[in-house]
């Protein structure tokens, strides 16, 4: 399944999210917990001296790397292939999937085991592999839960199964895998461990994403907690890594800073349980390592942001710190975004990767409070990007509703002609009188409808500010 989640219109998805009480409560407690842990591990950790210096370091590294992305990707391809790995540059999701299909077909591989990877969700790799007869198993606990539950989709970048409660997970395990124990998380996890252990040992191909590639050594860094990525990169004979083309650092020196920013911002850990550097070594003669390495570097729309005002969106390290502070995400949940990338970064990235036609409304899922920008460990100006997206959308990109375009046009004419503006101002109280009660509008017409469905709108006053100010000045003068 590709980046898109569901087919319902944006506001219908939002309504659905708002009615899901368990999901809303889960979002609230998850946000509170993740945010508290992040604050403790960042601004609250005095051993780091000053968290702002770390953010500056992260921003500096990401900016330099993206500005020289062609050079570092070239270097990565040289170092990775010098150690026997194969590198495939995929301009589109289809190209990436076709290459991976070819690799598994040549191997005669049937059993594929995966570690959690957003980019493989984005390109719809599982479906592509299933189409060539592969049995694909997700091994991250959350992804495993979603896969068993009829391929449900992620609702959070870091904790994809956040919208499910333990009873639902127990029932899914019972129905699909004959699970007989209770809903205790320890028992559910132990069951997944047993189920997946054999799958790891029998898999022909292991597939992971990539937190960061290291250009000068040809290494892939994976940052995980469960140990499944280590299983996936240890036992199968063929190893395929899929990376978004921007997920790269020049050397291990910069990896240090970015891994620190990621672990602390995502889950409030000093380091995740496993930080693993995987470098091809086909002649190492190891018993427990892959013999065949493939690195698939994916563009799939990312290059559209290069050289534009949105370039810094590619600095993202997928920590979800912005998601964990967003008041809109808190209320509507992950699935309402209709994209595997949710929250503020999702609302910025999805229109870049998938276009305004599909995702042009997402930048409106924000109160522009800038909490996201403040939380971002690499200082992406997320709320400014959201405003820029809105400007593009209203200016005609994508499928901005004709009514909206017309009203913006009408407003522009009215606001630039004083006589028209005065007339509209005088008429507004009369026009809105049928909707006004106690100086408030609670059931507004047209574009006011979505607003007044959930809160009152103050009715326009008959007196305007200019008149009030003139009267006020006159009274002041008379007093003197």
């Amino acid at each position, binding site marked *: 399944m590709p980046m898109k989640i569901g087919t319902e219109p944006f506001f219908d998805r939002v309504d659905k999210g708002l009615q899901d009480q368990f999901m809303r409560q889960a979002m609230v407690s998850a946000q509170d917990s993740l945010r508290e842990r992040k604050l403790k591990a960042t601004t609250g950790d005095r051993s780091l*001296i000053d968290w702002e210096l770390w953010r500056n370091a992260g921003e500096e590294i990401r900016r330099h790397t993206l500005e020289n*992305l062609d050079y570092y990707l070239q270097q990565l391809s040289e170092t990775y*292939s010098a150690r026997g790995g194969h590198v495939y540059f995929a301009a589109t999701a289809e190209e990436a999937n076709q290459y991976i299909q070819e690799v598994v077909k040549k191997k005669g591989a049937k059993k594929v085991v995966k570690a959690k990877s957003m980019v493989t969700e984005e390109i719809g790799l599982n479906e592509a592999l299933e189409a060539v007869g592969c049995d694909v198993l997700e091994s991250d606990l959350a992804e495993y839960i979603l896969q068993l539950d009829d391929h449900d989709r992620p609702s959070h970048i870091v904790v994809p199964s956040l919208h499910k409660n*333990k009873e639902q997970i127990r029932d899914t395990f019972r129905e699909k895998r004959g699970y007989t124990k209770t809903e205790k998380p320890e028992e559910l996890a132990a069951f997944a461990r047993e189920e997946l252990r054999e799958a790891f040992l029998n898999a022909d191909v292991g597939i992971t994403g990539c937190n960061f590639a290291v250009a000068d050594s040809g*290494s892939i860094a994976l940052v995980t907690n469960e*140990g499944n990525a280590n299983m996936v990169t240890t036992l199968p004979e063929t190893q395929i890594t899929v990376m978004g083309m921007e997920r790269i650092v020049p050397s*291990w020196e910069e990896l240090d800073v970015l891994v620190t920013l990621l672990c602390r911002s995502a889950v409030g*850990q000093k380091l995740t349980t496993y930080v693993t550097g995987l470098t091809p070594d086909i002649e190492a003669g190891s018993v427990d390592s892959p013999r065949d*390495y493939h690195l698939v570097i994916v563009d799939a729309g990312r290059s559209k942001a290069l*050289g534009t005002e949105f370039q810094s969106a590619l600095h993202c390290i997928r920590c979800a710190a912005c998601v964990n502070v967003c008041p809109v995400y808190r209320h509507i949940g992950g699935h309402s975004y209709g994209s595997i990338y949710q929250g503020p970064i999702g609302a910025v990235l999805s229109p870049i990767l998938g276009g305004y036609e599909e995702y042009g409304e997402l930048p409106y899922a924000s109160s522009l409070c800038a909490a996201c920008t403040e939380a971002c460990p690499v200082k992406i100006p997320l709320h400014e990007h959201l405003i820029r997206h809105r400007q593009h959308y209203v200016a005609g990109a994508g499928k901005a509703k004709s009514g909206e375009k017309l009203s913006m046009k009408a407003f522009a004419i009215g606001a630039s002609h004083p006589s028209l503006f005065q007339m509209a101002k005088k008429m507004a109280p009369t026009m809105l009188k049928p909707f006004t009660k106690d100086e408030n509008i609670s059931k507004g017409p047209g574009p006011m409808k979505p607003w007044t469905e959930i809160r009152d709108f103050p009715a326009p006053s008959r007196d305007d500010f200019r008149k009030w100010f003139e009267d006020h000045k006159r009274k002041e003068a008379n007093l003197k």
Partner: protein
Amino acid sequence: MTQGTIHNREAFLDNIANKLGRERRTKVSKPSWNYRPQWEVFKGDSQDELLATFKKACEPVHTSVKETKAEALPSALAELLTTYGGGSIVVGQDPRFHDFGLQEVLDQNETHIWDTDLGALNIDKAKEANIGISFSDISLAESGTAVFFNDKYKARSISLLPITSIVIVPKSIIVPRITQAMKVIQDRVQAGEMIEPYINMVSGPSNSADIEMNLVVGVHGPIKVAYLIVLDR
């Protein structure tokens, strides 16, 4: 070494350069970074202070810690093996077991020493083992981490597949944080050395918070991790 293949590179990178509004860059020097806060953390701390930080960091990552002098290491290890249920053990082909005088303890237990000539049998032994014993190559005080430079002799499975992972940590290899470990790796890369195919930094037993944000310790990797710190090595 056999060279791997590279597909579609030129058009892909030309597009990036084009989008960035310039010609392809074939030579880039890394700037001298303005911000390097990583070097200030625990700067100047003594080895005793680093040890204290390391031990403190082990608590939240569910890792137990025992300390011993080198001369008592064999008995301390034997005791620890009993604590974790004994049974089958797997270790790498690592000269440090001999250097630290641990051969006898290994011989007295049901120990499998990793041997590449035995092929997949090693993996069977590791997955059935109750305990894997490894030496940490570098340890990180800030995060309570053991760094392993895994290769065909010091196999990655040893700290991954058994139920319990026991790690021997000489006090002298404790450094402030990941920064110093990355520097060791970086220096080797710059010197043109082949780095190990698997550099694994492990902080405690595997865990997950994917079910209603409840922390479950022990998912796919080991369920228990214990450090045995050797104070005078």
